[in-house]
């Protein structure tokens, strides 16, 4: 009797242990993460939640995260400007360039962002000059940014290579912005840096507001086209609310609600069909963006070098010594790194995937 009971007890114990193991949720993970868009933020701990789903990099410890964050900051210098020119965000932006107004919107948005950064950069420089700092390097970066702005303004959205131009110039302006930030960071201590940052945070101008208006109007045109396209899928006649949206009587949220209402009035099968059509279109857009991004990456280095040489010509004409020197150095660095890569000695650090738990 005793033997039997002890065997049963042993069995029960084993069942209990294995049940506990099953009951334990393996998904209950926490990761350290830093925001690549704003790497100056400290590493933060995220546990299994919706925010975590959107992360691109995750680390098992705060030390790993901090190490990668610092490396990431270090790599945000000139030498890093030839790295992958199409990030996820840019690829998403390209998706909309498939439609009419899409390319125009993206190029105008880029122009507006450069104008905004130039405004803030120039304000920061004038504050620094007032405080007696040497701002030659910063001014040279702004001068090159002006050249990029001219290139964006000269780009034709109707041309076949408009996506390529958008990728190239967005990449250039992003690199120049990072260079400016790094340079100013080296000039100032933490307190002064924060003070100036606060001073220029809400800087705006009539020019910038004009850009915002133009972008908004173009986006409205784009959205109206999308409404017509959706009506085509739903199979309804267009109603007057398209005009109401254009006039500003109804906003985009109301338009979306109206469309939702129309779709909800359909049968389940029709709803399913509409959903499938929308999904199909989305996949086609993703494929379009993926293809264009791949094409742009193809000869990115050659195009970059060509742009730098063109800018050097313009800098020579302007006689800006610091800018000439800066571009010449970059061309030289660029050619050297290309040579290194050609020799198979890739010394560059990609700086964006050291994390063990890269998602």
């Amino acid at each position, binding site marked *: 009797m005793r033997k039997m009971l*002890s065997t049963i007890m042993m069995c029960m114990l084993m069942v*209990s242990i294995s049940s506990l193991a099953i*009951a334990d949720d393996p998904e209950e993970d926490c990761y350290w993460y830093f925001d690549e868009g704003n790497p100056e933020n400290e590493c933060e701990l995220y546990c299994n939640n919706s925010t975590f789903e959107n992360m691109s990099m995750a680390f098992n410890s705060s030390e790993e995260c901090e190490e990668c964050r610092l490396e990431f900051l270090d790599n945000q210098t000139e030498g890093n400007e030839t790295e992958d020119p199409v990030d996820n965000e840019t690829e998403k932006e390209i998706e909309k360039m498939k439609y009419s107004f899409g390319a125009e919107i993206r190029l105008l948005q880029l122009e507006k*962002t450069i104008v905004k950064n130039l405004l803030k950069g120039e304000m920061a420089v004038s504050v620094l000059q007032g405080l007696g700092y040497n701002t030659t390097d910063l001014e040279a970066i702004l001068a090159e940014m002006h050249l990029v702005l001219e290139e964006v303004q000269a780009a034709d959205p109707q041309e076949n290579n408009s996506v390529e131009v958008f990728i190239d110039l967005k990449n250039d302006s992003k690199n120049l912005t990072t260079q*400016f930030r790094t340079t*100013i960071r080296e000039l100032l201590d933490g307190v002064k840096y924060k003070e100036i940052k606060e001073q220029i945070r809400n800087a705006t101008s009539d020019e910038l507001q004009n850009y915002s208006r133009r972008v908004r109007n173009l986006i409205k045109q784009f959205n109206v086209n999308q409404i017509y396209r959706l009506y085509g899928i739903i199979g309804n006649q267009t109603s007057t609310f398209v005009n109401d949206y254009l006039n500003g009587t109804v906003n985009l949220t109301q338009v979306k609600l109206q469309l939702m209402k129309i779709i909800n009035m359909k049968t389940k099968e029709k709803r399913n069909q509409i*959903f499938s059509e929308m999904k199909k*279109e989305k996949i086609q857009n993703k494929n379009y963006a993926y293809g264009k991004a791949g094409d742009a990456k193809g000869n990115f280095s050659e195009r970059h070098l060509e742009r730098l040489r063109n800018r050097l010509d313009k800098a020579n004409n302007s006689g800006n010594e610091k800018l000439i020197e800066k571009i010449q150095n970059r061309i030289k660095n660029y050619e050297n790194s290309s040579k290194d890569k050609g020799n198979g000695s890739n010394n560059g650090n990609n700086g964006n995937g050291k994390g063990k738990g890269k998602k």
Partner: protein
Amino acid sequence: MEEMIDMDKKILSIFIILVIVVSTTVLYVTLKEPISKEDQQDFALGEYPTNEDISNEIDDTFLPENDEIDIGDMI
């Protein structure tokens, strides 16, 4: 003999405690499992899209009027 009976009682009480522990754990597991399976089924079937699915697709079709390109901050 009495000692034997006393021993059996002890074993029996331990056995009862074990039964309670095991049944609680098993109950916890069985209650937890169907929920996650149900979730997975909902996701996998996708026979009819929910309002949220359709709403998300509609959102993706349009561009927010305040949409901006991010190239980072100057400072």
